[in-house]
């Protein structure tokens, strides 16, 4: 963010330098005042830390089965109980969170990359190319995308299975590539779906900015195109992009959990929050903790991410704040 310090020596006057910083400082002050957004950020932060570091300190791994301990209620030994195969739920939730966050992060990066590139090109070139590129987006919008992701996942499962059998029988490898293949496709499939809105937002911003007077002023002052883009366009596009990115992450976590719930996403014995909720829903009559804990943690995470996203939107982009 702080590119002001990087090219500070190339700047003509200190006035501009301060102006560049104040956007982010202002945003930070506004965010700091929004207690819900801050609480959300704190929850997400501790959840991420817990999910990524926590499993190293646990004795029981997410996949250790002990059928004699199946469906035990939460206790001192099993903090959040055990599942129908006697696996420690606490460890499964942490590991599942890791997978859910990773899927969300990877898919968001994919969608960010495609969306920003497509949007910038479309907005910057303008004219007929812009019309054509936006027409394509409109057409893609009309497609029932969740349905396509489902098809893609079925397809991916088949492909992963046959690659695995081929490796095992043909080359004698002992691999579980199908699992990783599946996860990899999950990133791809979700990312490919979610870039459309990002592209629209970026294009709108770029188009808007090109017509703004301060850009014209920069041009007439003789600033180089690179300088205009780096110093004046990007900071202005960045706000909405950051905001939309924070709102994409919960959307993608939701989609991942949705797919895993239907049995099309992350495959057992791996763990993900969607998968845990699915198992929980099947066992809820005797062991409600299997549904409650993953469900509540998942909902709280979505809740926090949405609050953080809204807070960021209000902080970075007070004019377009929706409510």
């Amino acid at each position, binding site marked *: 963010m702080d590119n002001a310090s990087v090219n500070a020596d190339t700047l003509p006057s200190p006035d501009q330098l301060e102006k560049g910083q104040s956007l982010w400082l202002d945003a930070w002050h506004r965010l700091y005042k929004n207690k819900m957004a801050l609480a959300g950020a704190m929850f997400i932060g501790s959840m991420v830390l817990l999910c990524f570091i926590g499993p190293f300190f646990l004795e029981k791994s997410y996949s250790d089965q002990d059928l004699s301990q199946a469906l035990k209620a939460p206790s001192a030994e099993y903090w959040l109980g055990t599942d129908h195969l006697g696996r420690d739920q606490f460890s499964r939730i942490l590991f599942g969170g890791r997978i859910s966050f990773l899927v969300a992060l990877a898919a968001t990066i994919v969608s960010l990359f495609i969306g920003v590139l497509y949007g910038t090109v479309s907005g910057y070139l303008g004219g007929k190319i812009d019309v054509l590129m936006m027409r394509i987006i*409109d*057409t893609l919008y*009309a*497609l*029932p*995308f*969740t*349905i*396509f992701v*489902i*098809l*893609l996942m*079925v*397809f991916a499962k*088949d*492909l992963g*299975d*046959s690659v695995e059998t081929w490796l095992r029988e043909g080359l004698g490898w002992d691999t579980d590539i199908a699992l990783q293949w599946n996860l990899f496709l999950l990133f791809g499939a979700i990312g490919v779906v979610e870039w459309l809105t990002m592209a629209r937002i970026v294009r709108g911003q770029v188009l808007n900015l090109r017509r703004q007077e301060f850009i014209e002023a920069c041009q007439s002052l003789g600033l180089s195109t690179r300088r205009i883009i780096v110093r004046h366009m990007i900071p202005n596009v960045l706000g909405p992009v950051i905001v939309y990115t924070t709102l994409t992450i*919960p959307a993608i976590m*939701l989609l991942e*959990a*949705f797919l895993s*719930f*239907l*049995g*099309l996403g992350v495959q057992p014995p791996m763990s993900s929050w*969607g998968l845990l*909720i*699915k198992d*929980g*829903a099947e066992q*809820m*009559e005797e062991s*409600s903790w299997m*549904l409650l804990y993953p*469900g509540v943690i*998942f*909902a*709280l995470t*979505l*809740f926090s991410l*949405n*609050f953080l996203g809204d807070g960021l939107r209000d902080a970075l982009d007070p004019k377009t704040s*929706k*409510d």
Partner: protein
Amino acid sequence: MQTIPVLLTVATLTFFLLRLAPGGPFDDEKVVSKEILAAINEHYGLDKPLLTQYFEYMGGLIKGDLGPSFKYPNRTVNELIAEAFPVSMELGFYSIMVALMLGLGIGLIASIRPNTVTDYVPSSLAMTGICLPTFVLGPLLILIFSIHLQWFNASGWHFQSDKILPALTLGGFYAAYIARLTRGGMLEILSQDFIRTARAKGASELRVVLFHALKGGVFPVISFLGPAVAGLIAGSFVIETIFHIPGLGRFFVQSAFNRDYTLVLGTVLFYSFLIIILNLVVDILLVLLNPKLKFES
């Protein structure tokens, strides 16, 4: 219009995606001799070259024929959709009703006195609804109302009371979203000059909200209804699975697992058609409500 090219794209994409998948629809059958498998493949035309199959399918499609199902012997896809869709439509209708009634109500209450208790409580309720995914809310409602309180059956689609929990679950998210949209839309309208004029004329607060502001305030809600339909369809996959409802959503998920090519293709096309048509209806509705839009676009 865009309808035909979009449908053609969907049909082509889905067709080749399914056919390129390594598994065949009859791979899972219990051991059958090669001759029988060949006969089955011949019966369904699967032995012909891929392009021939594609053009034959497209030929049938023009006449509205979606072909025979691979997994339900002697049934056509048209029959299966005609049987399952009304159930999904009923569920969808109830859910939209739940969403509109709860959503508009909660949103209106929240918008009347912004940033007070009567705003915070409904607004947080709406936020909770948005963050509780259907596949968490559904099992939770079953746990509370079916297993503990025993008010409703946990699953099935036989009695009128069986329809309450699924409709609440599916409508819940949309109710929450509509509440937020209504609140946002109403706040924008309520701050405009013509509302001040109405108040200055001495119109009661109720009249101002219900007669003057509501029409403009629900505008975002109506434009949301188009995308909401696509979401309701996706939601129905989960709801119909959780509550064991014999609707099209469950059929679709099962047929995707079974590789019942023609049923998957038919359902995808049917859904796409539905989404496109309903989006069109929403667009027309928007222009009817706000003639300004006609000139802008």
